[in-house]
């Protein structure tokens, strides 16, 4: 069973990295057409991407959006999940329906409608409107993730905490919170991924600053430069490096304990 599982996991990870492998392959392929046969090795595309200040700026803009969005949606999602499960409000069903709404509306349409609203309110487009708009569509994801963890926490532990004198807040902080840690982490990562790859809303709601997803999409419209492959490779490698570093730190901390 375990061996079969390992095999399956390897296959699935292989599947997940198959397109990434292609991207990596063409990021060092000499031709600027993404097609076989391969024509030779070059570092040109990486040089190009590293020399392109515009994309660098876009990358920073993406981070400037994704970090607050991930934080905000994780917090709000956790609050919503708690209100759905652990500290259930009386209006739970209505509340759940409201939470699902942004899930169900096509992005573009929501973007247009939000734009109309911002216009009516006299709010001009900026990164703040992007953050607000994205947060709303990502919120249901984080809520679902956190709620699926909360559902399984043993309520008797909350009783025990109350018994020992912990107020609602304390028992939340010292019992519920640590036990929902996995869920919060997953929610944050998913929110970050969704935010940084969101194109439609970002394009509609952003003002003068352009996030990477928007820049990449417009670059793509005219020419599929392999330098974008190089960019993707850098992002993926950067992420993997972060994971490895975090693991190493965790390992060392574990050993010290």
């Amino acid at each position: 069973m375990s061996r079969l599982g390992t095999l399956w996991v390897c296959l699935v990870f292989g599947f997940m990295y198959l397109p990434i492998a292609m991207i990596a392959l063409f990021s060092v392929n000499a031709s600027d057409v993404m097609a076989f046969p391969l024509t030779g090795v070059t570092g040109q595309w990486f040089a190009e991407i590293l020399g392109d200040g515009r994309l660098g700026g876009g990358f920073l803009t993406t981070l400037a959006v994704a970090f607050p969005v991930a934080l905000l949606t994780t917090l709000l999602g956790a609050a919503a999940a708690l209100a759905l499960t652990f500290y259930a409000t009386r209006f739970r069903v209505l509340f759940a329906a409201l939470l699902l709404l942004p899930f169900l509306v096509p992005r573009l349409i929501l973007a247009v409608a939000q734009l109309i609203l911002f216009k009516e309110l006299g709010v001009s487009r900026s990164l703040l409107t992007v953050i607000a708009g994205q947060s709303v569509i990502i919120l249901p994801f984080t809520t679902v993730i956190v709620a699926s963890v909360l559902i399984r926490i043993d309520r008797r532990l909350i009783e025990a905490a109350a018994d020992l004198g912990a107020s609602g807040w304390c028992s939340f902080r010292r019992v519920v919170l640590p036990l929902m840690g996995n869920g919060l982490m997953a929610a944050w990562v998913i929110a970050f991924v969704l935010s940084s790859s969101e194109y439609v809303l970002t394009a509609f709601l952003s003002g003068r600053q352009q996030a990477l997803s928007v820049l990449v999409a417009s670059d793509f419209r005219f020419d599929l430069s392999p330098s974008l492959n190089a960019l993707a490779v850098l992002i993926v490698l950067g992420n993997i490096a972060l994971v490895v570093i975090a693991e190493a730190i965790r390992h060392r901390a574990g050993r010290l304990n």
Partner: protein
Amino acid sequence: MAVAAKTAAGRRTRPLLEVIALHKSYGSVQAVRGIDLSLANESYVTLLGPSGCGKTTLLRMVGGFEAIGSGTLMLDGMRLDDLPANRRPINTVFQSYALFPHLSVLENVAFGLSYRAVPKDRIKARAREALATVRMEAMADRRPRQLSGGQQQRVALARAIVNEPRLLLLDEPLSALDRRMRKDMQIELKDLQRRLGMTFLHVTHDQEEAFALSDRIVVMRDGRIEQQGAPGDIYTRPATAYVADFIGGASCLPGRILGPAGKGYAIETALGRHVVPGVAGLSVGARAVLCLRSEQVALGDTGTPAEVTHAVYRGADWLLECVAGGQLFQVAHAGPPPAPGETVRLSFDPDRVWIAREAA
């Protein structure tokens, strides 16, 4: 000075906990159906009763984890109804332990202390002391899932007692412990209760435990209280056949009261007439039972003939089951047991047995 004295006196006489006409249903299941109970300050009360009779439910309402169906709870003369669990000066040893899986044993025990007026630097030391009390100091750094069942139970115990609450609720706190450890813990509990002047409400299935610890025993049945009183009263003067049977497993011989006689009543049974003490208020002609405990029945050369049907080894002695007049009797017998099928003669001292009501 005068005021202080008065308060102290008031405190001594006013019950710590009063339970008045308490009810609780889960859907169509009536778990608690009208309980009146009052716990004197600094007393040790145990709750005995069969599985499912509502003990845990009662404790949970007192602790504040279950909404009251109807009735009133008063602590120290004040209504508890609106006080949330964390503000009640009560701690609980849960039947299911409910240890925090993400905290170490020590952190579990220290948890409650941060909500008491305990200096920060004393918290760990106090927690360690409590762990020592339950003989778990060596496992302070483990997680609950790395412990055996009995070890977990002892951590749950330490987690509650370390807070030294006014009222401690214990829901079968020693059920997973071996006899020796249980004895040790009983001594620690009793000592704690006396030393700190706490009040204990302790659910147990172990009658020896109840006898050894309690000032008062409350026998429950089907969501109600069947009898309460001092351990000796409950054992030697059960009010009903149910209590006589449930506590100490008396053999109950049905009969009819012929009238008052001597210090008790004359009663007519399948095994003849006897004059025996009994509960007050039995009228002539009333149906009642004669309660005979296994150690009150002796094998001898005289007495009612009976057939031995079964003999069970108990270490210190044997428990014989004998049938006489269609009625089953249990007899404690120290020597080598007669073989099943043998006929023996049973006798008892009429002054030491007891007449109880047939039903509540």
